């Protein structure tokens, strides 16, 4: 009995420390990034182009911020309509269990697709076969393919969370599912869907592997041309570190990237939480 007590206590300690460890990991990651990165961040860092030799050792990261913004917007623009249509089908229209299961499994498999495989596919298709070259467009489409399942799943769940009484009452009046969707269900699920889109944006902004092979460049004069390579924050961070350009600038870039993503994630969480009520 004494042994039992002792074991129980040990397990309790294990459970609590596992939970606390998680908290500690996040705090130390963020804390360390702030500690090492904050001194680099100033207005010049945010608003200037990379300078110095090797390039990036001096100056700032503005083109990378712009490039990431372009990539993310392009990705969401490419994914949003097909993803919403798929989510609407899954939540509202799917009557045949078989088809629904196939599509649900597809979405799950797409979500599990390693990002480098997505990159490989998009490289072969867009960059080589279709002749886009390493470009913003190819990268945006690759990221679009990556965030597609994220938007589908969040939008589907947001729609399914809407009170089912609305569906029964609406449909029993004789209105079509589409009318019901536009007037009632979509507005009700809007916060959750928007949260999902922000989540997808954060996901796209942080992805490195797909753009590394389809879109990214070490330096570009301008951002925003669809047919030109772009700089991007995560790739810039990778280059600064792996080419040993400047560790300080790398910490600064990482801090900017993570802060951006945390803000996106927090807003997304708040929106999706609101949807649940």
């Amino acid at each position: 009995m004494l042994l039992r007590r002792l074991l129980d206590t040990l397990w309790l300690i294990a459970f609590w420390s596992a939970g606390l460890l998680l908290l500690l990991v996040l705090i130390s990651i963020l804390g360390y990034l702030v500690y090492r990165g904050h001194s680099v961040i100033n207005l010049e860092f945010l608003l200037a182009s990379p300078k110095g030799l090797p390039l990036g050792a001096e100056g700032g990261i503005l083109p990378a911020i712009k490039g990431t913004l372009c990539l993310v917007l392009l990705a969401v623009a490419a994914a949003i309509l097909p993803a919403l249509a798929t989510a609407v089908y899954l939540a509202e229209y799917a009557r045949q269990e078989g088809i629904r299961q196939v599509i649900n499994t597809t979405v799950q498999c797409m979500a599990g697709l390693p990002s480098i495989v997505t990159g490989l596919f998009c490289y072969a298709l867009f960059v080589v076969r279709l002749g886009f070259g390493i470009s913003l467009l190819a990268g945006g489409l690759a990221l679009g393919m990556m965030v597609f399942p994220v938007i589908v799943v969040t939008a589907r769940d947001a729609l399914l969370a809407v009170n089912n009484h609305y569906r029964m009452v609406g449909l029993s009046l004789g209105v079509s599912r589409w009318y019901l969707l536009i007037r009632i269900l979509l507005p009700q699920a809007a916060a959750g869907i928007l949260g999902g889109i922000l989540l997808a944006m954060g996901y796209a902004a942080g992805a490195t592997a797909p753009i590394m092979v389809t879109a990214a460049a070490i330096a570009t004069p301008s951002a925003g041309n669809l047919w030109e390579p772009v700089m991007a924050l995560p790739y810039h961070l990778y280059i600064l570190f792996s080419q040993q350009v400047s560790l300080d600038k790398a910490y600064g870039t990482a801090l900017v990237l993570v802060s951006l993503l945390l803000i996106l994630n927090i807003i997304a969480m708040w929106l999706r939480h609101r949807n649940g009520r």
Partner: protein
Amino acid sequence: MMQERMGTICLLVAGCSTLLLISVLLFMVLESWPVWSAVSPLAFILGTDWNPLAEPLQLGIGTMILSTLWTALGALLLAVPLGLCCAIFLAEFAPQWMANILRPVLNLLTGIPSVVYGFLGATVLVKFFEINFAMASGESLFCASLVLTIMVLPYIISTSESALRAIPPEYRQVSLALGVSKPYLTLRVLLPLAKRGLLGAIILSFGRAAGETMAVLMLAGNTMVLPTSWFSKGEPLPALIALELGTSEVGSLHYQGLFAAGLVLLLFVLGMNLLLALFRRDRRSGVS
């Protein structure tokens, strides 16, 4: 009327996503086709020499597969016990305020991009090994596993937590009424009941860990030597593809070899996901 067609349109669009997934698979097969006639699939997977520029060229990804397995399995070895403890803590023991802190923490951990994990791992963990173990360079499969552990933890935790929460409360009441302690109840009753869900969580995170690119690229050392232990250097498959794709000549056997490697990775991860889908369906039909 237009409105009645919207359902069909949505179905068509949704169907296109399935087509896209299939076309990814077909495309990989197509692009890598010449490789399979040059090298037998078995030799490709088991061969340990990768030298696509030499004459005669050697295409074997055995070392990379082994590195992938070391890092991914190693990450699971660390992440599964830790993740289970966290999940149990969240589902059964954590007071409400603590759970309210930890759930957002999990979301934020998933929100940090892999390149940042890789970067921090490389500057902190690798340095730590270099200084404390007097190693010339601290990169190793073990380092990659450590960072992957943190990256897959949120997936393991949230999936296992929902598996635990899905257990009807009657089991808890009945057992507690017998006078057993809560940790005993959790380990002896709840864990076995949630077995399938927990296994699903492990499969999911195995696929994630095997497909992760940036962190392993920055941490595993990238040498093409057959890894003999967890602590040697290696080059997992995704890292190989990311590193060499840009320099391979389009249409060469090197290029095609990378697609073959991608195909192997894709088949593996798809297999994991289909297994998981099968699992989930089984479980659903199992309950009422």
